[in-house]
């Protein structure tokens, strides 16, 4: 089966529809599927729900889809650093569901693993627990959280082979593997597609079974907070 496509637009062909639910990888601006987000912006698909840890910044990441009012709802753990997001949220144009970060990651992982719900102690006794089933295991309360199954996963990896085996780089891995797992269809963008057989099978982070479509492209990989130390003082 052919997985490699020539462009982000071609890779998304036939997959996008208004009102769909998309799971996206990335943490802050690190490891985000920037090419696929740009292609979704160009496709103009509307009323999107995103499960994504963050919402990008005003002009990068999911932020570009907020500018064009394509997003209906965000499921995220942290949404600072985005003025347009806050404006739309406070004016009621945008729905927001806060999930604790680990709960969001596990919801994606579980959904992709055929687990429709799980109990966690994260959020017990807080607003997050409101309306959720509480169950006591060995004297400790846990709340029921649901697995996520998305219509589409969009993911960024470092390298892939043509069968979709993926290798991530440093902390750009973050939400990408769980996001990839929870989509009915998963489209991945990478910096480099290498020949089949050139990746060490023991060093593959996510096997190609999770990957349906694949593109290679040039990435901006913007840095959100450039922090450095002085060579003299070190």
């Amino acid at each position, binding site marked *: 089966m052919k997985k490699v496509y020539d462009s982000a637009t071609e890779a998304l062909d036939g997959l996008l529809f208004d009102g769909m639910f998309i799971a996206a990888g990335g943490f*802050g601006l690190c490891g985000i599927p920037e090419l696929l987000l740009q292609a979704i912006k160009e496709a103009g698909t509307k009323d999107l729900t995103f499960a994504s840890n963050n919402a990008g910044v005003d002009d990068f990441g999911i932020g570009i889809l907020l500018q064009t009012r394509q997003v209906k709802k965000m499921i995220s753990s942290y949404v600072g650093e985005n003025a347009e997001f806050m404006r739309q949220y406070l004016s009621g144009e945008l729905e927001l569901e806060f999930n*604790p970060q680990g709960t969001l990651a596990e919801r994606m992982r579980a959904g992709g693993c055929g687990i429709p719900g799980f109990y966690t*102690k994260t959020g017990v006794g807080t607003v997050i627990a409101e309306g959720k089933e509480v169950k006591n295991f060995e004297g400790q309360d846990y709340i029921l959280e649901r697995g996520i199954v998305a219509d589409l996963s969009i993911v960024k990896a470092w390298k892939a082979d043509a069968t979709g085996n993926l290798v*991530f780089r440093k902390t*750009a891995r973050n939400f990408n593997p769980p996001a990839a797992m929870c989509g009915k269809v998963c489209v991945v963008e990478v910096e480099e597609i290498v020949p089949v057989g050139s990746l060490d099978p023991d060093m593959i982070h996510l096997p190609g079974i999770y990957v349906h479509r694949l593109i290679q492209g040039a990435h901006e990989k913007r*840095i*959100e907070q450039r*922090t450095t130390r002085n060579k003299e003082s070190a």
Partner: protein
Amino acid sequence: MAWDRNQMAARAAQELQDGMYVNLGIGIPTLVANYVGDKDITLQSENGMLGMGPFPFEGEEDSDLINAGKQTITELPRTAYFDSATSFGMIRGGKIAAAILGAMEVAENGDLANWMIPGKLVKGMGGAMDLVAGVGRVIVVMDHTSKHGESKVLKECTLPLTGKGVVDRIITNMGVLDVVPGGLKIIECAEGVTEDELRAATQATIV
């Protein structure tokens, strides 16, 4: 007289023992890394890294290498990377020995509030709720009172909680207190602070 930010961080560093895996929050907790000395401490960054190194030299920033505060950082020889589900698996599973976190309010029963002020801009809890629910020991580092002089160490939190009954130890500019049955126990007063002054600045029950 009381402890300043760096003295609070230095005091918090005394809580860490050789071999610990630790998660440090944003703000004063980040400074704790400067005071671990010769102790063999491995720092976790919940976006998917164990063995967090210092900020890079200028020109050596890597956009694929950031901490949970989205700042550029570096790796160490011991560094390991993993995905977010694995990262919070080790947090929720109690593998991280301790988290040192900031707070807006703490209560005598160990309740912690540090993510939301109703009516103000809410940015989200990030990984804080998972950390306080899962790690072995939760140590809070905060100012003892607000800018208006009101105690932040309370009988009951007034703000929405991050976790219920999760705090083990509180380190403030005025001293160190432990959450024990019935209230808080004074462990230590900061340099130049008397026990009477510490009690007077604390709304919570001291036992």
